[in-house]
């Protein structure tokens, strides 16, 4: 069965330049096997190194215990929970699970539908905390862009929202230019970030400026 796919590029740190990659509009068994057989061992190896260096557990990757197979099985068949993944060189580099039933909280957007990011994760070898140097860069930005494009396709003007893991707060506030609406007591006190239509346009334009 053919899959919807969009050509993209990742930045290869070792080659100091772009490599061809693909943005698939779903997550299949193939990607879950990558997670199970490649992500998990790499994660374990990275965390072992952190332990040996005496890094505090609080500074370890905060998503290390996530189980993408469980996540996928819970949303199987649900049209309101689309997913994307990025692959290059035959390996999954990032995954994102979205949710289409939530509403905006920003003052001028309150109640309007948005694409909510339930989960987003980079492959362990792309995370500087775990592997130095990381293998590829750009995974996070492309997956956020995918969420924005889906929001536009749904006629929601690019509105997206998410609860950031604490270690990623800066990425969403500074790199993505999202509004920090503060800690959400109903989401383990994670900070809730939202992107308005104008912020979505600015995020897209940011990458088009050379």
């Amino acid at each position, binding site marked *: 069965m053919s899959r919807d796919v*969009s050509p993209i590029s990742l*930045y290869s740190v070792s080659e100091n330049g772009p490599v061809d990659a693909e943005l698939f509009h779903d997550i299949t068994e193939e990607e879950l096997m990558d997670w199970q057989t490649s992500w998990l061992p790499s994660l374990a190896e990275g965390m072992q190194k952190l332990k040996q260096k005496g890094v*505090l557990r609080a500074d370890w990757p905060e998503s290390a215990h996530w189980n993408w197979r469980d996540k996928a099985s819970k949303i199987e068949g649900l049209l309101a929970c689309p997913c994307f993944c990025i692959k290059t060189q035959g390996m999954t580099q990032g995954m994102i699970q979205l949710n289409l039933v939530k509403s905006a909280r920003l003052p001028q957007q309150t109640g309007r539908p948005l694409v909510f990011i339930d989960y987003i994760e980079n492959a362990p070898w792309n995370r500087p905390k775990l592997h130095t140097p990381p293998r590829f860069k750009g995974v996070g930005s492309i997956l956020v862009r995918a969420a924005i494009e889906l929001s536009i396709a749904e006629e929601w003007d690019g509105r997206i929202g998410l609860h950031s893991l604490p270690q*990623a707060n800066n990425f969403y506030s500074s790199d993505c230019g999202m509004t920090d609406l503060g800690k959400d007591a109903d989401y383990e006190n994670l900070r809730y970030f939202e992107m308005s239509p104008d912020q979505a346009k600015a995020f897209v334009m*940011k990458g088009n400026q050379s």
Partner: protein
Amino acid sequence: MKIEITREWCINMAQMEGDVEVGAGLLALDPDVADTAVEANVVETGEDPQLAFGPFVQLMRRQIGLSVEELANKADVDMSDIINIEKRHHYTPEPRTVVRLSQVFELPSKRLMQLSGNADIRDRHFKEEAVRFAAKSGSIERLTNSERKAINTFVAILNKDET
């Protein structure tokens, strides 16, 4: 659905990303998909009762005369957990750690779950008392009389049933 993202855009954004983490999603639990339609309330009042948890654990530990290591051993939790709880204002320990501490301190685990950020605080009075306690607690080695009074008052509140 057609998505067009140019190579230039991808590489420009990658280079601007720097060395960042990008994870988003529930930290400890997978959300029940059936609950996705429930609107969450954002609480940002400037008062953070979770600020009380670290000082409270530290004062209780000192009151019962234990070092960090001794408390960790008694509660059967990692020493790094106790250090993080006491030193990091917004550190949310795992529920098991909180339950073990509540057993050592002989206090209701429900209240400590709320104080540690693992559960909602809906009791406005309790929230205010927690913030008040956080403001009063200090960091000197030996408990002062006022610290002793503050912690005994707060322990009485923790032992009260939720209204």
